[in-house]
């Protein structure tokens, strides 16, 4: 993969991580956390770790987000920080 794209993906990962913990709405944060997982998966794909990337795409970006959504839906989306 072209190194500029790799670097861009890496920067996006960090931006998503910072955004996920700073958004003041848990549902939004959960979605950004899903994006974070997906960008991480792209990162691993770029490193040639196809199996890890596949697992992260299905588990991290898929099921984890669904579970988090379910939990937030049944509790509250309010957060102070």
């Amino acid at each position, binding site marked *: 993969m072209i190194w500029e794209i790799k670097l861009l993906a890496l920067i996006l990962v*960090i931006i998503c991580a910072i955004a996920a913990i700073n958004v003041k709405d848990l549902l939004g944060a959960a979605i950004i956390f899903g994006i974070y997982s997906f960008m991480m998966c792209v990162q691993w794909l770029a490193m040639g770790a196809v199996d890890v990337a596949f697992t992260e795409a299905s*588990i*991290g970006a898929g099921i984890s987000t669904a579970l*988090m959504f*379910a939990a937030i839906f049944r509790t509250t989306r309010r*957060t102070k*920080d």
Partner: protein
Amino acid sequence: MEDFLTQLTSKYNFWAYIVLMMIGLYAMIAKGNLIKKLMGLGIFQTAIMLFYVAIGSKAGATIPILLDTHSKELIDFADYINPLPHVLMLTAIVVSVATLGVALALVQRIFDVHGTLEEDEILEKIKNP
């Protein structure tokens, strides 16, 4: 300075893992919301996975799946990326989702009991019920 730059460029993936890990750890310590803490934990764990996958990378090698299964030649280990860290991280990813599931279950129980997800409000309610 020159030294520092070469180190930065040759190891930028390792730097990224440290930055992510610090973000995750900060969220776990400083954030009061329980779900935010769990997100911090998730970021922390993926940072370590990034580190492991970075260990396995090899310049000029391809993905760890054998290309030609019929060739009689000896397989050259320099042609394929190191599969072992990938195996270890598959395990770690599955462990992290299992931990997340249990943690979310506990969070729901806590919400049932205390009616809030903010740590300071919960402590307040425990002190003055």
